[in-house]
């Protein structure tokens, strides 16, 4: 009885799965950074970036549909860019009058909005590709290898480890509640109770979960201390990167730099 949907890793034996986690992490971050740095409205480069990520998706055997479905995750963030449609100065497309308010949609606004939407969508796909083809512990090791502060990596690791425990705990609480959510044997009683009472129950459950998490963290800390934890996270040394890894890094990085330079030229 566990919650499975949280683990994004998909088993596979593709070349993307087999690539060293450090290479994948560095290239994914570089890809996202490049996508962010490309100026507004340079559409050809967006298409190239998209082509790059989609060919890797196909190579990984994850299935384009799978990645697209997960990439829908980007849409709520795109909403944050919605005001740009109306606040960017430029050629006016049309105006709406709402009472005393007048809002105007502009052409540069539309361009800016779609650029940001497209860029975040492409970036999310790169992140999905990374997490779906690399097991989480390997990503953590890779983070350590590229000198992300150890404490930060340790916190991310613990969070990942206990997120599942916590989700399972929440699942059990919800089950215990539904097991007692019944109907009276005499008809005529409206089941479910008042909304405020239900909210109170849900609040109690959230509080319960919170107290338990704190208590669990105390127990975990004591267990760590009793095995000699002194605030310093020690790890095994990482194996050296092989020549083939360096080649992958250089090719990947080279393509990204090329795209960036190209985009600046087109933008000019």
């Amino acid at each position, binding site marked *: *009885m566990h919650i*499975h949907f949280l683990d994004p890793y998909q088993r596979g034996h593709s070349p993307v799965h087999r690539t060293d986690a450090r290479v994948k992490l560095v290239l994914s971050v570089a890809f996202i950074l490049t996508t962010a740095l490309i100026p507004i409205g340079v559409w050809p480069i967006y298409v190239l970036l998209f082509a790059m990520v989609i060919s890797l998706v196909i190579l990984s055997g994850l299935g384009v549909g799978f990645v697209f479905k997960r990439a829908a995750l980007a849409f709520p963030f795109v909403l944050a860019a919605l005001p740009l449609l109306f606040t960017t100065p430029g050629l006016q497309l049309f105006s709406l009058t709402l009472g005393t308010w007048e809002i105007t949609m502009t052409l540069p606004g539309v361009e800016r909005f779609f650029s940001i939407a497209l860029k975040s969508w492409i970036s999310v796909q790169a992140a999905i590709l990374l997490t779906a083809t690399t097991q989480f512990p390997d990503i953590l090791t890779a983070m350590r290898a590229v000198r992300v502060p150890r404490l930060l990596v340790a916190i991310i690791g613990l969070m990942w480890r206990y997120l599942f425990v916590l989700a399972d*705990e929440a699942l*059990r*609480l919800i*089950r*215990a*509640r*539904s*097991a*007692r*959510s*019944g*109907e*009276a*044997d005499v008809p005529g*009683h*409206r*089941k*479910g*109770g008042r909304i405020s*009472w239900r909210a109170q*129950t849900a609040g*109690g*459950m959230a*509080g*319960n979960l919170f*107290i*338990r998490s704190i208590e669990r963290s105390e127990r975990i800390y004591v267990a760590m201390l009793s095995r000699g934890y002194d605030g310093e996270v020690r790890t095994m040394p990482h194996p050296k990167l092989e020549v083939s890894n360096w080649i992958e890094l250089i090719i990947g990085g080279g393509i990204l730099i090329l795209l960036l330079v190209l985009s600046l030229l087109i933008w000019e």
Partner: protein
Amino acid sequence: MHHSIEIESLTFSYPDGHEALNDVSLVIKPCEKVALVGPNGAGKSTLILHLNGILSGSGSVRVCGMKVGKETLGRVRAMVGLVFQSPDDQLFSPRVYDDVAYGPLYQGLPLQTVQERVEESLAAVAMSDYSQRISHHLSMGEKKRIAIATVLSMKPEVLVLDEPTAGLDPRARRSLINLLHELPLTMLVSTHDMPLVKDLFPRMVILDQGRVVADGQTSILMEDKELLDAHGLERPF
């Protein structure tokens, strides 16, 4: 006259493909007390979660003559009192009173009735003085008793318990056994506590790898050392 629990060729797999129950059939008569034993991961908890429709597999489950399904879920959940292994999951409200009152309040019963039900249930588990206590601060044995009270308040016909004696000291365990002995309900109890099975349950069902491998009189099955060994169980002294 209907039977309390009628399960017919129930099969269930978890979403990850793990088959937890395989063609399980089981009939329990009203007021019968049955023990469900088997090694860890045998499917005991999964089976229990089918009795009130929290999980649903293929095959049929009938409780008190009602087929467990979407339409009957409300009634079924009131008829089957499910006590989970961890009382911390069962007790999700801040105060004991709120938790015992949850079932009847959810059913929309009048406040007077709710009050009576809470008092009766707490009295039945000998915890009447605890109604205003904070659940979080109780001992394991106290929490177990309160957890049972939270389902008694729904006036169920069937009581289903998952590992009721796990984590209890001998005295709390003994007093829980006495309590279960006195309750005049149909009972299905999943447990690893073989002395408890011997003491309390005339009938036992052995589940292993999702199948019922034995179902019969406890006094007879307990003598079959080979059978017990084969399914990771031990004969009590």
